[in-house]
């Protein structure tokens, strides 16, 4: 809601799934900045054009923390595809992020 980054490289997403990701941060902390940068990089690398990334700053919207059961900051929530997955931390461990969010396009 705060920052809505639509995929810009490809107008029409290729067939298959899209990823809806939400990153919860609390202000511009080092961990938050790193998490956003890392997440954006992984998405571009693995699912370019097939993701939506939403960054929510809880300092400005504290009421949103309850909805996604956010405790740790930063947290990225994969809303789509189901089931909901969460990855916490600054996302510096790429392997874990990819596994956690399942960011690998399935080949059809």
């Amino acid at each position, binding site marked *: 809601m705060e920052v809505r980054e639509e995929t810009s490289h490809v107008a029409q997403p290729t067939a298959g799934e899209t990823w809806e990701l939400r990153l*919860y941060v*609390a202000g511009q902390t080092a*961990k938050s900045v*790193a*998490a956003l940068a*890392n997440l954006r990089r992984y998405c571009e690398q693995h699912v370019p054009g097939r993701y939506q990334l939403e960054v929510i700053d*809880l*300092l400005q919207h*504290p*009421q949103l*923390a*309850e909805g996604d*059961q*956010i*405790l*740790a*900051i*930063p*947290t990225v929530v994969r809303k789509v595809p189901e*089931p*909901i*997955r*969460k*990855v*916490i*931390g*600054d*996302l*510096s*461990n*790429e392997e*874990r*992020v990819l*596994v*956690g*969010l399942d960011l690998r396009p399935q080949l059809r």
Partner: protein
Amino acid sequence: MQEDIPFQLASLPRLPKAPTGIDGLDEITEGGLPLGRPTLVCGSAGCGKTLMAIEFLVRGVQEFDEPGVLMTFEETAEELAANVASLGFDLPQLQAAKKLRLDHVHLDRSEIEEAGEYDLDGLFIRLGYAIDSIGAKRVVLDTIEALFSGFPNEAVLRSEIRRLFRWLKDKGVTTVITAERGEGTLTRQGLEEYVSDCVILLDNRVIDQITTRRLRIVKYRGSTHGTNEYPYLISEDGLSVLPVTSLKLAHQVSDEILSSGVPGLDEMFQRRGWYRGSSVLLTGTAGTAKTTLAAFFAAEACRRGERCLYFAFEESPAQLLRNMRSVGLDLQPFIEQDLLRIEAARPTLNGLERHLVTLHKLIGDYQPAAVVIDPISNLISVGSLSEVRSMLTRMIDFLKVSNITALFTALVSGRHGQLEMTEEGVSSLVDTWISVRDLEGVGERNRGLSILKARGMAHSNQVREFLVTGQGIQLLDVVIGPEGIITGAGRLSQRIHEEAQRVVHQHEADRRERELERKRRMLEATIANLRTEFETVEEELRRTSHEEHLREAAQRDGRAARATGAAPDYLPPVPNA
């Protein structure tokens, strides 16, 4: 926040406290939990940690107008609301009134992947938002240990929890944190390390199949507090911690005298009864009419127009009524006038504490002037000796403070050894102690009553025999025989013996009477004889005298005639004149 802190100008500032509103807890903590600081409530499963925490919040809203936040890590808001609805806590309504905010934190390890450094700012933000949105003064975290199962990095978690408590203190909210009890430690995750202000330990133990819950304040920094283990209960009205009364011997006393309901018994006391507000113990072996005496006392209170509460631990109300009717005591009208209430329950139905709380509650509701507990000795079946004793101490104190006259009956076992000592050891607590006992003689058993003590009053030292008759209880006069006081058949035989002696004496007296009469009659007869004899003699004498007289007169006449014939102026000398 600051202006809420009570400040005593005369003395040093005391630690400000937030009253919990929980029955009894504020007395033990001397005012409540430390204001604006976290308190840890720990205990094993099922001992009411969550309930205590929720009651703290609800009472805070209802009684002190302090809104609260409940952050729950285990149960959902709906589950909690349903769980505490039975205690009369309407959480949804409080939420709607913006006095309470529930936030359920859902943690699922399988959903969470850890990838790099993180902190728990999200939790802080949520909690901060919840506190600020309703202006909360009280916060409950139930059970924060659940975080340990949700986050793998314990080092981060511990530092974050430490930061959380610091942050809550800075926010100035009074916080209750619940935690599961661990093996050998107060909490499983060692949370007591972080919460250093106040730690309350709840304990749930089963002894002889009876569960008692106990509360202890392990630590309370900056304040004195009760240090004992206090029993507590979860009742329909929430948690209540005992003692409800403070154990200080400072109650007012009355100088008014109340009748025992048995006239003969009253007479054994110098002031014809016992003091209002005193406690009376009635001990006796089985079948010595303890209940009957107690019922007469209850009826007497009702006759004065006072309310009496009768706890029957052995008989149902109907049975008690029937049995008392057999001794000429009809309690039914008193019940109809709402002067008498009989509460019957088996002692084993509840633990001791629940009995005590029931008593407190009923006395609070009914406001009696007299209370009968029949018998207290049955309570021993639900607790150990020391527990029963401490419960009774509390009960007696409570009754005295309320100026309620109390009568307890107690069954003493054994005909010889333990007669002078009740098993509960309450005899030192009561003011008046009456003992009823079997006086077993040759082939029979009689009831004897004596007063062992009566504080503040002289009393009879006699053992009085009494009878339970169709017209009530009768104390018989003391009969002293050749070998002391005589009862029962001995009394009867003594009476027959006396009667026989009386008859013998009567006969003797009659006989003497008759003898006297006889003597009198004999004497009278003798007197009559003598008198007859005397009359005879008298008559003889009179007759002789008369004849003499006649002869003399005749001689005089003869001489006169002779003188007239010879010389009238010459009188010859009269021979034999």
